């Protein structure tokens, strides 16, 4: 149904953003958009199949997203302190 399509679109837009944004924070923001799109699709499926389990899973998604954002932003702040820049392109030390 239409909300499934909407979630697909949002997911793609989020993916575009994750690749295009050069600041770590904005890249993270795009990823949150993608996560939200996934939750939306789950709710749609819940409605379509009449299963409440999907909604329980979405609750978990939101909780986990919260945890993840906390840790992720903490990392970004820690990196910023070392390097004085939030540019993702500068983080190339794992090249190999």
């Amino acid at each position, binding site marked *: 149904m239409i909300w499934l399509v909407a979630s697909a679109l949002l997911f793609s837009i989020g993916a575009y953003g994750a690749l295009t944004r050069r600041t770590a924070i904005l890249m993270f923001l795009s990823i949150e958009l993608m996560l939200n799109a996934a939750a939306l699709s789950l709710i749609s499926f819940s409605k379509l199949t009449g299963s409440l389990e999907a909604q329980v899973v979405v609750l978990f998604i939101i909780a986990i997203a919260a945890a993840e954002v906390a840790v992720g932003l903490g990392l970004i702040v820690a990196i910023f302190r070392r390097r004085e820049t939030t540019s993702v392109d500068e983080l190339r030390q794992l090249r*190999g």
Partner: protein
Amino acid sequence: MQETFLLPLTIALPLLGFVLLGLFGKRIAEPAAGWLASLLVLGSFFLGLALLLQGGASWALPDWLPGIPFSLHLDNLSGVMLMVVTGVGFLIHVWAIGYMHGDPGYSRFFSYFNLFIAAMLVLILGDSLPVVFIGWEGVGLASYLLIGFWYHERVNADSARKAFIVNRIGDLGFLLAMGLLWSMFGTLSISELVEKVEAGGYSFTTLTLAGFFLLVGAIGKSAQVPLMVWLPDAMAGPTPVSALIHAATMVTAGVYLLVRHAFILHDDGFLSGLIVTIGLLTAFYGALCSLGQWDIKRIVAYTTLSQLGFMFVAVGVGAYWVAIFHIVTHAFFKALMFMTSGSVIHALGGEQDVRKMGGMRKYLPATHLHGLIATFASGGLVPLAGFWSKDAILAYSFEYGPWLWFLMLLASVLAALYSIRWYVLVFWGEYRGKEHPHESPAVMLWPNHILMGGAIGVGFMGLPYVIDYKNFIEPFLTKAIGEFPHEKLPVLTEWVLILTSAVVAIAALWWGFRFFQQKMPAWYERFQAAALQGFYADALYNTLLVNPAKGLAELLFEGDKGLLAGFAGLGSLVGGLGSLLARLETGSLRFYLAGLLVALVLLVGWGVLR
């Protein structure tokens, strides 16, 4: 014929010497090592003689290989060979005690020498063809080790290798013959083969083929044309080696093999004719080449070649006992010739070029006497040993065809010529060198005395029937070889032949004596230049066989290197691929995300569109 373990003991004694001297040689002092080796060989001689006088012996390990026993057999034929090998072998061992004095490899020498005797005995006594083959290969190995004894010189190692490789061609023939005989008769024991061949019921052409392959083996081992190129180069070894292996014993192994298989050969006109041709060619080739050599040992080596050709002719015309008889006489006078040459070399401090010799009769009286007797025996002067065996060959050749007799007579003339040339250049005239010759020590003189006695007297056991003196050796050997019907020549013809060869020999010796003392005429010089090169046989083989083979080897080596380079290239291909892929490791997060996205699209697309 008794079954006794004393028979393998004859082999075990020199083998023990090989092992002891090989392992502990460095700790055994100089003459002791030599005496140990010599006494072990003497022990084998007496043991063999005792067994022979008791009527022979045999010994077998049944089922050594499936269907093939390890069997040894001492009958009259192998008995005679055994006595020659161990008897003359003992004398040469003793002589070598003196000759090899001071050599750093003294014990190693005698260890190899004993190995040779052991292997030769295995060859002679073997009743089962694989056992003979073990001995065959063993003497080849010993020959290789001894020719290349002074292996620090490149040329010695090369000569040893050449001998081994040319012998190998013969060995291939031997192996093929064994295979054929096994497939035809299901057995490789000579005694059983004799019965089966007599029983009949086999394809005659296949048997001829088997006999031909055996002949190839014999040609390789006995240095007949076309596999003769290794014998002159084998003179790179010490003189005792040349005397024992390349004159008296190993090179006669081919003749012995053929005589052992007389039951295959005697009915086969094609094979016999082939053997006669090869023998003739070799006899002439050897004689002509000898007349052009300047190295004293090479002169004698080529004479050996020529005399082996005589033996082959004897086998070819069906005179099997005569071939063995000639082996016996030849062993004596050829070993004597070699050892006399060795004494001269020793006296002159290592000089081997006859152009720097001469006049040795004044400085080395005892050795001179040895040399004189050797010359007369080799030249076929009556009544020395060489005359009787050679005359027997001539008589049988006359039966085969007068043309053959005539050719053999010519070959005997050449034999007389090369013998007297050797004598004149070494012992007569004035000394052309600068050394101070000294006579050999007693340990080197006494074996030569004994050999001299043999060269004079051994012939008398094989006198022709027209002389009213018992011919011992013919019935003795024929008992083992087999009775082949043989028409005796008329008495008059026999006497004419004897007298002709006697007179011709004396004339040739006398003429040669005069001829070789003067300056050589131009035609002789030209002949000599060609003879010196062995009539370019080595050059011919090099062009036709050796160099193409080397070229092929180089080609294959390059190809192999190319293959290896290809594999290494494969490795570097992987490396290149790796470095190409490493470019994906940019370290940039966004790049990785892009990769993920593309992969995701592709995977989901594939999953969905399936």
